[in-house]
């Protein structure tokens, strides 16, 4: 805001060196020889580490297999075989280019089809495919037998990239045997533990600091390879080392979202207008390495949108000699949603039903037919979202084919996302000046987590927000925090903060009761003072309370781990409504209006929650209309590793986005929000394009070329 924030790349420490990676120029092969002789003539090179002299395993770098930090088996153009540290950026860059690597080149594959062939080169010893991974419930085969209509389709989603504005950056230094890493991490505790494990040192000897990070969206959940490279180079040189990735390095070397080729079938009872069952299969191109560590699936989510009696999901991860993949905002979600919500839209059209009403009638009521949701606001999301959007006035049946210069249309899509509850920790300290300090390990990557935590504490304690300060972002606090991912921060850490605040409040009132000479039940805290209920003149400032009690501070620590009962499950819900205008001469699609209705339980901070909705919708517009990593067909490298050619949404292409919050009364209070805001966006836009033009597009992104081809305007 005023230039004071310290992102990793802003740090400057004495004697700092600059690090660069040495990367592979071939898509697949074994390192035969590395020749460093050309570095002899270059002044300022402090250290070189390569796969020839380092065996470090980057455990978080690959889900199933062991991935070496510096590999001797390169699996994509851009894979790291070493790193160099030098006294300036330019020298480090030059050095990295002067290192000569000889390879025994192996045949490579760049597409799912080629990678699945029986004679395909093995990217990993145990083959190129992970899976099948199953999700879903019920007996799909018998459910399909009940159908009087089955509809199906093929759907594809492309490889896209997290592309946070801050490129990957790490600074590391050692003090004796204690390592400090200034990382742009989403999870300081996870990063600390990961680095400790990889370097084989105790976690107590590693300190990770993240004060600010310029976005992540899933690509900095735990230890990153550049954290380790900085640490190792620093150890070797005995100087601090700053690893900085360029924008091109970030696109190529840091993971993005895997693609999906899907086939989906739904079984229908057309008399009742009901979805009986769904059967969804996906093949996903996961690149040379996949960092996915979650549910085990590569697409999922759609099994919980509707009251089907059965849903079967199967996903396969297929390795190719291309850049790595991993978590990106709702890693499995928008892919599954795009297929499901497009086909459901096709069903509604076939049955001549309003697509919003069709979804309303079929929406999920119980989870997988037998568990209750802790709260379920999907019905209101659809109804209120439609009302705010003006669905009834705007929706008309689509044309048979597009005509004229442009066309307008509207589309709807729903989605759900699991909302989890887990361990959180917080420390609250009342200081002798009446000020309160809240310590948690959350990192603020832009979600406003610190503010939300402070609000929870201030509210439970009865003090003003201005009297509370938050200490965060340092693993030396020793406090467990799940980090900023999985839409879990407000839940996990928020619950611990509230618990600590309520306990501290009790302590304060206990202490005050001897001063006021009444029972604690007759006291309260308001605006930072202890007051006696019903006696307006009797109050005591918190600072004075400590003074009377001769205490320097009052402290409370809380560790919480809420448990959801066996027969229940927590889910967040959403219904999105999009209006588009399609230019039929250029094929360009503009989103002209957007309403996103969300049930995430209690909303603590409306301003911040709206920002999460806007952020997810804009990322979804990018995924729908302009973002795609272009993989070179001959070498497998990313051809558009630049903002010039990887088109992020620009301010001129974004309409006003309205958020509607359905605040269901959930026993746990809050539910996750951040990821779900992206999930239904591409489907909603695709459905709007169909409504406008009669053109059903089943592949992301919806490029102008694709629109023109579909309309028959482009015959070449």
């Amino acid at each position, binding site marked *: 805001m005023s*230039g004071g924030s310290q992102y990793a790349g802003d740090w400057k420490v004495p004697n700092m060196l600059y690090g660069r990676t040495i990367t592979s120029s071939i898509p697949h092969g074994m390192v035969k020889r590395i020749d460093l002789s050309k570095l002899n003539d270059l002044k300022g090179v402090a250290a070189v580490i390569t796969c020839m002299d380092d065996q470090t395993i980057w455990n978080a770098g690959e889900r199933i297999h062991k991935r070496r930090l510096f590999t001797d088996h390169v699996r994509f153009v851009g894979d790291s075989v070493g790193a160099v540290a030098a006294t300036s950026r330019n020298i480090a860059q030059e050095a990295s280019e002067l290192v000569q690597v000889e390879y025994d080149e192996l045949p490579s594959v760049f597409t799912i089809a080629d990678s699945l062939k029986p004679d395909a080169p093995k990217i990993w010893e145990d083959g190129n495919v992970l899976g099948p991974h199953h999700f879903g419930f019920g007996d799909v085969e018998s459910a399909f037998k009940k159908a009087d209509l089955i509809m199906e389709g093929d759907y594809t989603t492309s490889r896209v990239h997290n592309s946070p504005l801050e490129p990957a950056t790490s600074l590391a230094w050692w003090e004796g045997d204690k390592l400090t890493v200034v990382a742009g991490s989403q999870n300081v505790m996870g990063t600390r533990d990961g680095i400790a494990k990889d370097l084989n040192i105790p976690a107590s000897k590693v300190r990770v600091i993240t004060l600010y990070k310029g976005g992540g969206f899933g690509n900095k959940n735990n230890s990153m390879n550049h954290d380790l490279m900085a640490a190792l180079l620093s150890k070797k040189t005995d100087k601090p080392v700053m690893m900085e990735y360029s924008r091109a390095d970030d696109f190529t070397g840091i993971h993005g979202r895997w693609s999906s080729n899907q086939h989906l079938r739904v079984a229908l009872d057309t008399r009742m207008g009901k979805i009986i069952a769904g059967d969804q299969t996906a093949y996903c191109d996961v690149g040379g390495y996949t960092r996915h560590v979650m549910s085990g699936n590569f697409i999922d989510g759609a099994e919980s949108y509707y009251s089907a009696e059965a849903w079967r999901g199967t996903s396969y991860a297929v390795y190719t000699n291309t850049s790595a993949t991993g978590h990106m905002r709702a890693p499995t979600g928008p892919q599954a949603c795009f297929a499901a919500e497009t086909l459901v839209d096709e069903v509604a059209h076939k049955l001549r039903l309003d697509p919003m009403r069709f979804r309303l009638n079929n929406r999920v009521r119980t989870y997988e037919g037998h568990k209750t949701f802790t709260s379920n606001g999907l019905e209101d999301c659809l109804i209120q979202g439609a009302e705010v959007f003006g669905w009834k006035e705007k929706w008309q049946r689509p044309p048979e084919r597009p005509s004229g210069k442009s066309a307008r249309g509207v589309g709807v899509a729903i989605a759900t996302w699991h909302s989890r509850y887990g361990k959180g920790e917080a420390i609250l300290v009342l200081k002798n000046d009446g000020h309160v300090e809240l310590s948690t390990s959350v990192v603020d990557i832009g979600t406003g987590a610190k503010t939300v935590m402070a609000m929870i504490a201030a509210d439970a304690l009865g003090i003003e927000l201005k009297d509370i300060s938050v200490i965060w972002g340092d693993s030396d606090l020793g406090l467990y925090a799940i980090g900023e991912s999985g839409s879990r921060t407000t839940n996990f850490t928020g619950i611990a903060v509230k618990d600590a605040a309520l306990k501290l409040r009790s302590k304060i009132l206990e202490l005050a009761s001897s001063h006021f000479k009444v029972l604690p039940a007759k006291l309260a805290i308001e605006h930072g003072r202890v007051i006696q209920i019903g006696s307006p003149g009797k109050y005591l400032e918190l600072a004075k309370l400590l003074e009377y009690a001769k205490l320097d501070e009052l402290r409370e620590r809380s560790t919480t781990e809420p448990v959801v009962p066996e027969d229940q499950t927590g889910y967040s819900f959403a219904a999105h409504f999009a209006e588009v205008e399609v230019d039929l001469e250029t094929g360009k699609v503009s989103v002209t209006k957007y309403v996103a209705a969300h049930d995430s339980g209690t909303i603590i901070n409306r301003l911040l929650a709206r920002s999460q909705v806007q952020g997810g919708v804009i990322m979804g517009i990018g995924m729908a209309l302009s973002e795609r990593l272009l993989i070179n067909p001959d070498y497998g490298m990313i051809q558009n590793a630049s903002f010039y050619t990887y088109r992020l949404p620009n301010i001129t292409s974004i309409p006003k986005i309205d958020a509607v919050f359905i605040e269901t009364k959930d026993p746990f209070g809050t539910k996750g929000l951040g990821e779900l805001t992206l999930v239904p966006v591409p489907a909603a836009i695709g459905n709007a394009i169909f409504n406008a033009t009669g053109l059903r597009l089943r592949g992301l992104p919806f490029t102008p070329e694709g629109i023109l081809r579909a309309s028959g305007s482009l015959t070449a």
Partner: protein
Amino acid sequence: MQDNLIKVTFTINGALRSVEVESRETLLDAIRDKLGLVGAKKACDEAVCGACTVIFNGKAVCSCMMLAVEASGSQLVTIEGLKKEELDEMQKAFIQNDAEQCGFCTSGQILSAKAFLSNLDRKSAPLDEDSIKEALSGNLCRCGCYNNIVRAVQQVSRMGLS
């Protein structure tokens, strides 16, 4: 191969400063590394994203695409130059409208907006949403703050008209 260093002098945030730079050194690197003004960010280093925006002789420019030597004798304003005793009106508007999430693009957004408003002939030019968006079209935001950024700029622009 390192050049001999060249001394460059400019007025930055109201103060006359000199730095010694290589001929190939960008203005962005010079202000970050040599002057410690880290508010301008290196996000793409090829003048697409605008995170490195500074105001150069009254115009918003990408400092990553300007050599430090080109700034000789110029008037520069960086984000650090805005805050005096209290936050600048644009900074306040950004906070009030939650126009920043991760904050990485923010200094560029604010400077582009300020340059736009100060170069505008407010009596004749209507301050509609489209003209604000056009002015900020060189500033990317991955977190998706665009709606709130427009609101913040509109808020400030209304203050100027009275």
